[in-house]
């Protein structure tokens, strides 16, 4: 059923995607094949419009490719219908978006509890998971505040807690630091790195923020719908040496 290697949490085989703009067909992803290892923070970097967000949305099952196959946790996403895909995302994935996208009416703790409610968990389990996640991102003391009372960095921490509380196998983050200042950006990067290593979660992050590169385990450089470079960042290279892995 999978055809997937043991180490890979995510695999893409010949994934292609094009968009029509009027009569013009633009190739966004050009037959991409890659493997993303579990328990790592993998960064997809590249200039604006290179197709990195589209790749993220296809690998996370938010969008279907025009051709090619995607495997997530051994499951071929192309074989799932819409509701099965929703079910897969509910059980296995977390998302952190650039715009935080928190409900203005809900308090911090409720933002985190809300998606858990749909997972069939008991009330106490929902509460416990939300508390753990908020503790982990350091937002427990602000659990009763609403988004309007939070800074951008705090909102993003809540968004991370919302994704984390699901205890996902796969965590997808799209430009998670682009709306944040340097200090808050650093906090978010550290959290994503921690989540990958402490929880064994596969974190796939899309960003053009160069600060993220040194915190990633692996960096995929994209341009014009292709992966041009695939680098593994070693511990020693983080400060500041670096070696290229073909």
């Amino acid at each position: 059923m999978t055809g997937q290697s043991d180490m890979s949490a995510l695999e893409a085989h010949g994934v292609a995607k094009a968009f029509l703009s009027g009569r013009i067909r633009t190739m966004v992803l050009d037959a991409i094949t890659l493997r993303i290892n579990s328990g790592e923070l993998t960064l997809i970097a590249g200039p604006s419009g290179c197709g990195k967000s589209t790749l993220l949305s296809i690998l996370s099952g938010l969008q279907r490719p025009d051709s090619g196959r995607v495997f997530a946790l051994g499951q071929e996403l192309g074989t799932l219908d819409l509701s099965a895909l929703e079910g897969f995302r509910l059980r296995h994935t977390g998302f952190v978006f650039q715009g935080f996208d928190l409900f203005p009416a809900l308090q911090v703790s409720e933002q985190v509890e809300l998606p858990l409610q749909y997972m069939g968990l008991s009330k106490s389990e929902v509460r416990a998971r939300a508390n753990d996640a908020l503790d982990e991102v350091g937002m427990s003391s602000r659990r009763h505040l609403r988004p309007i009372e939070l800074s951008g960095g705090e909102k993003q921490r809540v968004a991370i807690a919302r994704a984390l509380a699901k205890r996902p196998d796969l965590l997808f983050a799209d430009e998670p630091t682009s709306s944040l200042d340097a200090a808050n950006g650093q906090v978010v990067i550290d959290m994503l790195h921690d989540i990958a290593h402490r929880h064994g979660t596969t974190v796939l992050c899309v960003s053009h923020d160069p600060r993220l590169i040194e915190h990633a385990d692996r960096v995929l450089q994209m341009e014009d719908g292709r992966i041009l470079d695939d680098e593994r960042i070693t511990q020693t290279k983080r400060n500041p040496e670096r070696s290229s892995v073909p």
Partner: protein
Amino acid sequence: MVALARRTLRYEWRRFLPAMVAVSLASLLLLLQGSLVLGIFGSASVYVTGSTADIWMGYPGTQSVDQGRSIDPDAATLIEMEPEAMRVEPFIWFDGDWRGPTRTGGVSVFVSGIDARPDGLMFSKVLSPALRAKLQTPDAVVVDRAELGKLGASVGSSAYIDGERVHVVGIGSGLRALGGVNVLASLDTAQRLNVDSDHPGWPTYVVAQLRHPEQAKAVAARLNQRQGGGPHQAWSATAFARRSTLFWLFDTGAGAGVLFLAGVVFLVGAAITSQTLVAAVFGSIREYATLNALGVGLGALRWVVLEQAFWVGAAGLVVAAISGLVVISIARLRDIPVVFDASLWVACSVAVMALAMLSGLVALRSLQRADPAELLR
């Protein structure tokens, strides 16, 4: 549990306010229109609803109280034989031509000849004992205070009905009729005024009070069965009042008019409400898309929107009910014929909730835009 729909409604109430206002105005309009129509056309049955008679016996097939024809006074015997009957009395009803003391020309009036004794059944709910006593004097009549101007009369003045002299001895309220003016008289006076009839003393109806009013329907059925399609027909008071109101409602075309207007109000309300809900859904579209990305199905999100529509409808209904009560009270103080009818309020509530839910269903379409892939662009 996080009640997303209600929390959002409470926190972002300004966003939902136009929908609530639209729903409450629509329901208020439906309610008042219904109450007014029932009030106006309910006055066709004021003879029944203002009296304590439980059984009405009249000409077979009579569709409304004011469409009655004389019946043989022997009909009373038939009811008297009924063990449930406690009191039986005749009721004379005919239309006449009023000529008042001032220059008001001729006015069509409906003359009601009633048993004016203190324990008489007819108009017992709307005539005070004092007025009943005054009616017992020869040629005495009582009219509604709201009709005095039309009749050009006042208490103590004289007038002519079909050429026979009468005296206005008092004024009542709650006696207004449809299509004419109610003039109340004693049976003797009415008999004397009923000059155009071949049988001036014959009653138009024979009414009866039962020992157990709740038996009215069964007694009416029994009476009809006993006489086997004879020259009379019996109805329970409730059935006859309803029959009279419905006759006027649909005979005059007002029923169709009311339904048409209700339809317009419903559509306008639904249009405004659905557009407001659509805007509210769009306002939260990124948050909905995020939930969907996290695996919360579109089906579950649809329930959130429908629940919001439900609460918008419920809130609008509460506002409409309170303002409806106030407006109806004011209308009653000003002698405007409005009726507080529980079944009408239930029907309006059902219609308004249907309006809200329909609007919610329309707003659901905009949820399709909650595409999580859009969040990545």
